[in-house]
């Protein structure tokens, strides 16, 4: 008899992000559409049931050089004073392939509670024999709570840039 057991356990042991096969990005409603970018220099690990991650904000990439400079400036991330952003989990809840992770998110030197929600896949052995775990996570933050209140009014009086920003982490974690 074969039985599919509903997994509720968070994998134990130590897992490090394979950053080539992982991504960290943001999306924010801007005017009539959604604008996004990604951070390329980051690391993440799941160790003893705690997920941690940090990213170098200077590696934030958007498609326009002037905009990238504005995002690095004191009006947004203030990269000179706050070069890193961080997440440290406090509790991970798994229900099958759904996962919720409570923790503290630090951006621009300001730490706020955040809950990441998404899916977990694996563990599974890859074609090179390594054991991988996939986490697709996202959360929505109010950027003004992290000291980023820049805006511009549209001709209709509405602000051009949403305060709500979705952060996404697509992580491939490799068992160490």
């Amino acid at each position, binding site marked *: 008899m074969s039985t599919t057991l509903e997994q509720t356990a968070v994998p134990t042991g130590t897992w490090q992000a394979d950053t080539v096969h992982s991504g960290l990005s943001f999306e924010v409603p801007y005017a009539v559409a959604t604008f996004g970018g990604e951070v390329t220099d980051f690391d993440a690990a799941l160790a003893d049931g705690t997920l941690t991650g940090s990213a170098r904000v200077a590696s934030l990439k958007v498609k326009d*050089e*002037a905009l*990238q*400079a*504005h995002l*690095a*400036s*004191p*009006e947004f991330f203030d990269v*000179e*004073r*706050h*070069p*890193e952003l*961080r997440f440290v989990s406090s509790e991970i809840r798994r229900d099958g392939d759904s996962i919720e992770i409570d923790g503290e998110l*630090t951006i621009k*030197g300001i730490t706020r509670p955040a809950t990441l929600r998404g899916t977990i896949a694996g563990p599974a052995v890859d074609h090179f024999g390594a054991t991988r775990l996939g986490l697709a996570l996202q959360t929505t933050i109010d950027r003004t709570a992290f000291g980023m209140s*820049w805006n511009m009014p549209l001709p209709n009086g509405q602000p051009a840039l949403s305060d709500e920003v979705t952060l996404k982490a697509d992580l491939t974690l490799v068992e160490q």
Partner: protein
Amino acid sequence: MIRVLGISGSLRSGSHNTALLRAAAEEAPAGVTLELWDGLRAIPPYDADEDVVPGPPPVEQLRAAVREADAVLIATPEYNSSIPGALKNALDWASRPLATNVFRNKPVAVVGSSTGAFGAVWSQAETRKVLGAMGARVVDAELAVGHVEEKLDAHGRVADDDVRAGLREALELLVAETAPALVAA
């Protein structure tokens, strides 16, 4: 020694805003010097065709003055509810190239005065907006000197204690912002 560069948005020889900067130099706390930049008149109109390396000599002199300063104090009048053209033009030149411009991460305070009641508040707000877009570290100094001619003595020197206190406060905010790495991450 912390070096503050004073930039007046007015070219007028008897400028009230230049008087504010002279008073700020007198009020500078120990360890702080304020030097007035007097090159505004020589800055040509911004022209992207002329925006090459090096730029026009007066522009390069402005860029060098800002680069060498630890902080900048701008005192601006208000023309038609906004920034005087000459000042905006100088900031536009200084902002190039945007990603590495000399105002990037530079602590800057904006103050202003007018002969009307409001003390150039709109011009100040727009100057702060421009500086923010340039990547400057704009401090929360608030000094809007209305009816400024009543606050100067017969020699054009600022004679008002509240205005002098406001200038001291602006300089103190600038000094605090020049302190190395306030927060590690």
